[in-house]
């Protein structure tokens, strides 16, 4: 029996990270926070339009969802989005269980899955051939988890998550294109601007 015999068919469209990120950003009207993970997820977030409520992760691979969880716990009235790559999530699968347990309803996680470590030379991840990361999220207890079938479905799932009563994870199959922009690597300024954007700080 093939290891994939019991897995649902992955008949989802292969989309583009910058395109879906731009679609997300276009929907943000209420100063929602967005946490961009390491590398391409934050590069495309940067390219989609710099907002004071965006935070760009420059290291600490795998921590976009935990950081987004922290923001969501601190500001339960604000919608918080986390953008993470498949390779990154593989580094921190346990975070899905933590998020399922705490269950912040204001957290939407977006998983960009191309099956490769694009930024290091497009090597396949160990999960590429046999692992369904959305199925892992569901099994971890995040029941509002689904693959987006296409761009329209992605937008529908984003809208749905905005009023969900539990955290949401949206899987997006993406192509192998590199990120569109390059984030300015100034962690103090990124952090300070984000805190200003969240109303935690006031400018000098």
């Amino acid at each position, binding site marked *: 029996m093939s290891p994939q015999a019991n897995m649902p068919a992955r008949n989802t469209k292969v989309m583009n990270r910058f395109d879906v990120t731009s679609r997300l950003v276009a929907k943000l009207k209420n100063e929602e926070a967005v946490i961009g993970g390491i590398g391409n997820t934050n590069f495309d977030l940067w390219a989609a339009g710099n907002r004071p409520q965006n935070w760009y992760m420059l*290291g600490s691979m795998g921590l976009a969802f*935990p950081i987004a969880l*922290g923001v969501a716990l601190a*500001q339960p009235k604000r919608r918080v989005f986390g953008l993470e790559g498949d390779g990154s999530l593989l580094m*921190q699968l346990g975070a899905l269980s*933590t998020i399922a347990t705490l269950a912040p309803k204001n957290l939407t996680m977006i998983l960009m899955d191309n099956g490769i470590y694009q930024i290091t030379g497009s090597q396949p991840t160990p999960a590429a051939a046999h692992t369904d990361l959305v199925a892992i999220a569901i099994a971890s207890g995040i029941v509002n988890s689904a693959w987006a079938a296409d761009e329209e479905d992605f937008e529908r799932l984003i809208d749905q998550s905005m009023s969900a009563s539990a955290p949401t994870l949206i899987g997006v199959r993406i192509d192998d294109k590199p990120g569109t922009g390059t984030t300015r690597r100034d962690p*103090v300024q990124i952090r300070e601007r984000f805190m200003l954007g969240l109303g935690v700080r006031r400018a000098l």
Partner: protein
Amino acid sequence: MAVAEQRTSPQASPEQAPQTWHGIIQQTLKRNDIRLVPYVPDRVLTTLIKNLHADPFFTTFPTAREEEAVGIVSGAWMGGMKGAVLMQTSGFATLANVLASLVAPSQIPLIMFVSERGTLGEFNLGQSLVCRTMRPVLDSLAIEHHTCTRLDELEFIADRSIKQAVTTQAPVALILNPLLTGGKVFDK
């Protein structure tokens, strides 16, 4: 709190009678408005963890890895909520990357309490070796750290260190030595 009130309610709860190391830490966290306390457990931390869970002031929960907890409190700090992470020595040893790539360069006042295994009666060779990596890692990143050995100094060290971390936007590690906690021994 009034002095008279203190006299009339002796040892009503661990936080009102901070004569234990864990009582002092709980009260010091509270006084500094540190509400979010994720942890990866350690035998030595059992009572502190139990008491934090019992106190509705705190949002405390286990994480799968220590760096996950560091990510959570870093995000919470940026969102305006203060936190601290509890772990043991071997857990600290998994943190070099997140300290060097997130906490230190972003100037996040990460507050770490590390139950110190690997010294003063350690029975596990792996623990004693991993313990030796902790202070060199902290020193290599110039992260402030204090080894807490005495009950009468603990409140001063913890309270001042937390305040310094927050005001200078720099991480700090408070290492809870077996001289303070009793540690974990083979025949326990």
